C-alpha cells in the first residue's frame, strides 16, 4: 500500500548534530568543590529545619539528575524510567532497614547493585537500537515496576514499607541534619568519581560517540558496550539516590515513583544544562524550589485576592506547567540550559568589562 516509502526520515536527515565543546566538569574543579563544601557546611551548621530538609531533597535529586546526565549528556540516550530505578533502590533500602543488614552503608551499596542489575536487564533489549527505543523500553519499565511494587506491597503494606533510620550499631544517623550530611557526602563522592571518569579515556569515548556514532564506531568503539556501561553506571547511581530518598521519606510506596517523577527528573537535567556536572545540580535546585516560589508569588498577590486564590488553588498544576514550558524553552532557545545561560551572560559581562577597561572608562 505504501511500500515505497519505508525509509524513516530520521535515517536521511544529514543535518550535522550540534557540536559541543568537549565536556566541561566542575568550573575549575577546585573552585566549584570549594563552593559546594562551603554551602554544605554553612547549611549543616546554621541552616534551619526547612533549609536542611530542602537541602537534603535537592541533594538527593541532584544525585539522580547527575546520574541521568551521564546517559543523556555523555551517551546521548534518554530514559523515561529513572523513577522506576529509584523505586528499586528505595524498596531494597526499606526491606534491608528492618533486618540485620541495616548497618549504614550496606543498604546503599546493595541498592546500587540492584540498580545496576536492573540497568543491565533493561539496557540489553533497549540499547541494541537507536536512542528512541531506550525511551520506549524504559517507559515499559516504569509501568512494570509500579505494578510490581503495588503487588509486592500487597494489602498489608498498602500505604508502603516503613524505613528504619540509618545507624552504626547504637549510633542513630536518622536525624534530618545527619541525613543532610550523609546525602552531601555521598553526592560529593559521586561528583568526584564522575569527574575522574569523564576526564579520562571513557569520557572521551562517550564524547566521540555522542558527536558521531558512525565515526566512533569506525575508530573501534563498541557502541553497544559503552552505552550499556553508561546505562548500568547511571542506574546504580539512580538507585543510590532512591535509597537516600527512602531514608528521608521514611516510607516507600509505589505511588511516589510515577512516570511524572521520571519526567520531572528529565526536565531538571535538561533545564540545568547538559555536558556539565553543575547543570543538573542547578536544575534540581530550581525545580525543587519552584513550588515554594509559586507560594511566595501568591503571597505577593495578596492585594488581588482573585489572583492569589487562583494561584494557591492551582499551585501544583501551575508548577507542572512551568516545568513543561521550561523544558520546551530550553530545547528551543538555550540548549545548554540554565548553566549555559549563566556562563554566556557571565562571559558577555566580562567582555563588556574588558572593553570598558580598554577604553579607559575604569581606572
Amino acid at each position, binding site marked *: *500500500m*505504501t511500500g*515505497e*516509502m*519505508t*525509509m*524513516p*526520515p*530520521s*535515517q*536521511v*536527515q*544529514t*543535518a550535522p*548534530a*550540534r557540536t559541543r565543546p568537549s565536556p566541561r566538569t566542575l568550573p575549575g574543579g577546585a573552585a566549584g568543590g570549594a563552593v559546594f563544601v562551603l554551602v554544605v557546611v554553612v547549611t549543616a551548621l546554621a541552616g534551619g529545619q526547612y533549609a536542611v530538609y530542602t537541602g537534603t531533597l535537592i541533594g538527593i535529586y541532584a544525585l539522580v539528575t547527575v546520574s541521568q546526565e551521564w546517559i543523556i549528556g555523555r551517551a*546521548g540516550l*534518554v530514559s523515561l524510567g529513572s523513577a522506576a530505578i529509584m523505586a528499586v533502590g528505595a524498596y531494597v533500602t526499606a526491606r534491608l532497614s528492618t533486618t540485620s543488614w541495616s548497618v549504614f552503608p550496606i543498604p546503599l551499596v546493595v541498592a546500587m547493585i540492584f540498580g545496576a542489575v536492573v540497568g543491565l536487564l533493561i539496557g540489553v*533489549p*533497549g*540499547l*541494541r*537500537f*537507536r*536512542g*528512541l*527505543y531506550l*525511551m*520506549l*523500553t524504559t*517507559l*515499559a519499565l516504569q*509501568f*512494570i515496576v509500579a*505494578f510490581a511494587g503495588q503487588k509486592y506491597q500487597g494489602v498489608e503494606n498498602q500505604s508502603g514499607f516503613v524505613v528504619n533510620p540509618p545507624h552504626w550499631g547504637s549510633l542513630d544517623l536518622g536525624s534530618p541534619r545527619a541525613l543532610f550530611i550523609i546525602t552531601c557526602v555521598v553526592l560529593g563522592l559521586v561528583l568526584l568519581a564522575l569527574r575522574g571518569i569523564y576526564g579520562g579515556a571513557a569520557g572521551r569515548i562517550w564524547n566521540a560517540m555522542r558527536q558521531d*556514532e558512525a565515526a566512533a564506531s569506525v575508530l573501534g568503539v563498541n*557502541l*553497544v558496550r559503552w552505552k550499556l556501561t553508561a546505562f548500568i553506571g547511571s542506574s546504580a547511581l539512580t538507585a543510590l539516590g532512591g535509597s537516600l530518598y527512602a531514608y528521608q521519606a521514611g516510607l516507600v510506596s509505589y505511588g511516589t515513583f510515577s*512516570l511524572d517523577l521520571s*519526567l520531572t527528573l*528529565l*526536565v531538571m537535567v*535538561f533545564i540545568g544544562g547538559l555536558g556539565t556536572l553543575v547543570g543538573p545540580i542547578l536544575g534540581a535546585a530550581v525545580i525543587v524550589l519552584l513550588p515554594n516560589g509559586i507560594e511566595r508569588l501568591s503571597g505577593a498577590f495578596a492585594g488581588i485576592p482573585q489572583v492569589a486564590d487562583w494561584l494557591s488553588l*492551582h499551585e501544583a*498544576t*501551575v508548577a*507542572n*506547567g512551568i*516545568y*513543561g*514550558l*521550561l*523544558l*520546551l524553552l530550553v*530545547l*528551543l532557545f538555550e*540548549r545548554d540550559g540554565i548553566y549555559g545561560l549563566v556562563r554566556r551572560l557571565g562571559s558577555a559581562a566580562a567582555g563588556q568589562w574588558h572593553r570598558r577597561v580598554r577604553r579607559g572608562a575604569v581606572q
Partner: protein
Amino acid sequence: MNADIANVISNGLVTGCIYALIGVGFVVVFRATGVVSFAQGAFMVLGALIFAGLARAGLGLAVGLPVMLVVMLVIGGVIYRLVFARIAGAEAFVASIATVGLGIVLEVIALLIWGPEVIAVPQLFNFRSRVHVVGELNFSALNLFVMGLTVVAFVVIVVGLNRTPVGLRMRAVANNPQLAAYSGVRVVRTSMIAWGIGGLTAGLAGVLYLLGSQPDPVTVYSLGLAAFPAILLGGLDSIPGSLVGGILIGLLQAAIGVFVGGEWQDVGAYCVLLAVLLLRPQGIFGSAEIGRL
C-alpha cells in the same frame, strides 16, 4: 459462541480502534518529521474537551465533530510551525523530548481552563440499542459508530496519502526531506499538514473514548501513552501496522480483563512492548532499517 469471548471481541475491537486512531496520527507525524510524539495524549484531551464544550452548547455530532476536527487540524499545524519547525535540523530525539514538554504544557492548559473533573457531555444518541451479529456477539450502536469512524479515518488517510497531490508531497518529505525541498515541495507546510493530521486523529480518538466512558482529562492523557505498545507492535512507520497493532493490543487487553483481571491490562500491554523490542523491534509491518545499531 461463549459470552466471555463475545465480550472480548466487542470490547477489544472498540479499544483497539481508539489505539489505532492514536497510532495512525503518531505514524504520520513520525514519518513526516522523524519525531516520536509523546504529546498524542494531550491532543486527545484537547479534542475531547473541545467537543464536549461544543456538545454542551447544543451542537450535535453532525456539527460538533467536524468543527472539533478542523480546530485540532489547525492546532496541530500551528504547534508544528511554532515549536518543531524551529528544531527541524536538530537530532530527532531532541524534538521527541520536546514533545514531552509540549504534552505537559497542553495538558496543564486544558486543566486550568476546564478543570480536572470528569468531562461532562450530554448523551448524543441512544447507546443501548444493540445490533446482533452472530451467536452471543453483538455491538452497541456506539461500538459500531466507533468502528465505522475508524474505518472511514483510515480509508481517508490511506487514499489521501496515495492518491492526492498533498499525499504525494507528504510521501516525498517522509522519504527524503532534502530531495523533496529541492524538487519544490514546501517541507515546512507539508510537515504542518502531517502534524495537523496527528492532532486531528488524536482528537477523534479522544472524542470516541469520551463517548464510551466517563473519563477525566488525566485519564484521557494517560491513554496516549498506553497506545505505545500498540504502535510499536504494528511498526513505528507503518499505517496499516497502526491499525493491526491497535486491534491486537485492544483484543489482548480485553482478554486479560475478562480472563485474568483488569489490573493486569496495562502491564500486559507493556510486557508485549518489551517482547516486541527483544524479538522484532521493527514491529509487524515496520521497515527493518529503523535504528539497528
